């Protein structure tokens, strides 16, 4: 789908996860890639409070025509990229509809309520079930496990970006990823991030 057009305008994409996972950075990288693609991008996000361990989310509105507001209206997300699987489920009530697509990392991050034994964290099957029932298409990847194999769990959000490119839901170009990354980090970290991006794309193909 390289150099392709958006399948819908605006294309509404949410990146969600838990504070500390690098959600904001991932949304900036994707946003900048899409600007290089010639799009108008608006990203709405909230951060700054002690959101460590809290749910965080970035709203991306990608358009070839004009700028949009920084919050996706109810029931109008086209794609959810979740760095933590239950966060994808959490958003479906507000943003979902039967055709929405979801790409999620399968690695659980237990909330303190779960750690304390007051709440229960679902099994992977209990996570898959509502995702499959309530969406048009679902991709599950164990990005954290793959990131640890590459030496650093924080690479999981780069793997997720690569996986997003692999799904083909929006036109993303590897060269744009390289350009954006090389402006924000040194050569040493760029190599490993490119590797993670490619690995993510591979995970979707298999």
């Amino acid at each position: 789908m390289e150099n392709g057009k958006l399948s819908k305008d605006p294309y509404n994409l949410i990146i969600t996860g838990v504070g500390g996972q690098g959600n904001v950075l991932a949304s900036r990288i994707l946003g900048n890639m899409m600007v290089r693609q010639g799009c108008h991008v608006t990203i709405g996000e909230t951060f700054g409070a002690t959101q460590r361990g809290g749910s965080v989310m970035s709203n991306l509105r990608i358009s070839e025509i004009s700028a949009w507001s920084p919050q996706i209206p109810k029931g109008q997300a086209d794609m959810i990229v979740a760095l933590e699987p239950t966060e994808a489920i959490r958003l479906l009530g507000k943003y979902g509809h039967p055709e929405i697509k979801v790409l999620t990392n399968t690695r659980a991050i237990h909330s303190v309520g779960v750690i304390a034994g007051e709440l229960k964290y679902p099994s992977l099957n209990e996570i898959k079930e509502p995702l499959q029932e309530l969406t048009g298409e679902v991709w599950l990847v164990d990005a954290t496990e793959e990131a640890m194999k590459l030496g650093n769990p924080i690479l999981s959000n780069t793997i997720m970006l690569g996986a997003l490119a692999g799904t083909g839901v929006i036109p993303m170009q590897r060269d744009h990823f390289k350009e954006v990354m090389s402006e924000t980090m040194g050569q040493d970290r760029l190599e490993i991030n490119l590797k993670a991006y490619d690995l993510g794309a591979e995970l979707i193909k298999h």
Partner: protein
Amino acid sequence: MSVMLDGKEGMEYMVMGNEAIVRGALEAGLKVASGYPGTPSSEIIERLSDVAKDAGIYVEWSVNEKVAAEVAAAASFAQLRSLASMKQVGVNVASDFLLHLAITGTRGGMVLVTCEDPAAHSSSNEGDSRGYARMMEFPLLEPGDFQEAKDMTKWAFEFSEEIGNLVMVRSVTRLSHASGNVKFGPLPRTEAQAEYRFSGAFLDPVAGPMISTGFGHRIQQEKLKKVREIFEDSPFNTYQGPDEPELLIITCSVGNLYCKEAIKALGIEDRVGLLKMGTTWPLPPNLIKKYLLMTDEILIIEEILPFLEDNVKVLAAEMVQEIGAKKFYGKHAGQIPSFGELSADLVIQSLADLLDLGYETVAQEYTDKASAAAFARAPQRELTFCPGCPHRASFWAIHNALELDGRQGFVCGDIGCYSLAALPTGFSTAKTGHAMGSGAGVASGFAKLRQFGMDQPVLAVCGDSTFFHAAIPALVNAVHHQADFTLIVLDNSGTAMTGFQSHPGLNINAMKDEVPALDIPAICQAMGARVEVRDPFDLEETQKTLNELMEYTEGTKVLVLKQACALSPEKKRVKSYNMQINEENCIGQDCGCNRLCTRIFRCPGLIWDEVKKVARIDEVICAGCGVCADICPAGAIVREEA
């Protein structure tokens, strides 16, 4: 490379609202910037400090917002362009000086940027600072999108110079912390010579001394008159829609984006007019009249207080004979809530109700099913201290010391990450929480209630940055009045909550120069307080010290708990210890502790393994602080030097 400085004229970049403001200031030839960190404003001074040396400007994190305003004002008095930035609560702190500044006026263009937090995403309140513009009588600008955030900021400096007064540019979270495309303009290369002129006549605005007096009010009124005239033709006030709309929407700030989206979503472009005001105080009367004449039904859409709404209504009342009676909808009539932030959904709903339109994007059945799935399968995530956070250890010791003391002692809290001490993550130890430094001030008040029979031990907490910002005067007051309480300074070596901005306790400033660090224990000692310093990771010593200090009743005591934040640059992703669970020793629910580590201590780096019935370390999350090893009564949590 920084796009702020290297971004090319005529090119479009995706930047945050705060970065758009920064670029606008640089394009205006800003020379001095100051501020105090606070979400959602912090990136303004941060980005400026990144480029300070290359751009030849001076940037500082001031000790508090009042001082930030004073520092920026000095630059303006010396004919340089300057900016002070802060969040909404900071404007309250700065207001004391700003009221006087509005009277003396300014010389070099001076802009006050306030970034406010409707819905209080990361604030203790959702205060609306726009009232200050009206009360203090200086002009207010509110950008309606990212491009305007840049363009308006740039213009605000010229405008400030034109009228000789401070100009306020107000942003909100969904602009400051949202990103969009912005087309950059040229950066000037100007040499500036700072000179403060004071030898002219007493009230000479360009060559006299800058002294606030009651006489200045008349001059200020004349300036406001001029402002109104300038605003009549401002390109920042725009109208989109038919010449005779059924309904006129008047909005400002990000309300603009939500209104545009709502009009499009409902397909009512031919029925509704959208007047977006960029110059919201003072309102230009002729412009408002022109649009009020278009229709009799007006909906005003804005966040937090009905500021625009009230001001439009005053004008409408003044011109009622020319424009006739109008029907106003908005916050007072209940179409727009008077709290929380706006969204396209809220605006869509209001418009659909007013115009009697149906609107549903998703079948209710789907939404019900998805909401039920979220309830059942997505466990709530309550806020918690980070793994390795020194505050968790501090409050563990404080909580245990209070329990051991047994006299219903309590903690007066204030603003910072440690505000979470009011929640289970801080073992619910904080029992008051207001402004920066208020813990110390309120505690000193409680401590003077001994004569009325109050015998509960009183503790207060403040962070290191907060200590300098506002706790010092409260501590001076307490020591002088011999208030018997213990101030605990939670010194984690940075303004951690907002992203490690420098403060006077550190030996580095905003521009990364080496500077003298002020010693918190020595300052407290010099005031005459009894001072102790401990490492909060040493739980036993910390608790013991606290119990001793609570017993000691002769005056004010200070305990500095010093341990760097787990996210500080020196500690981030560096583990002191590799943690492990000795599964044989962990007897979980059968242990006398009934799994104290996960049930009560609740560090996210520890997980309870439901199957094996033992605690586990989450190696992705654990920061390796080693504190949990001291919690476990069975010695099952083992630390090993990393």
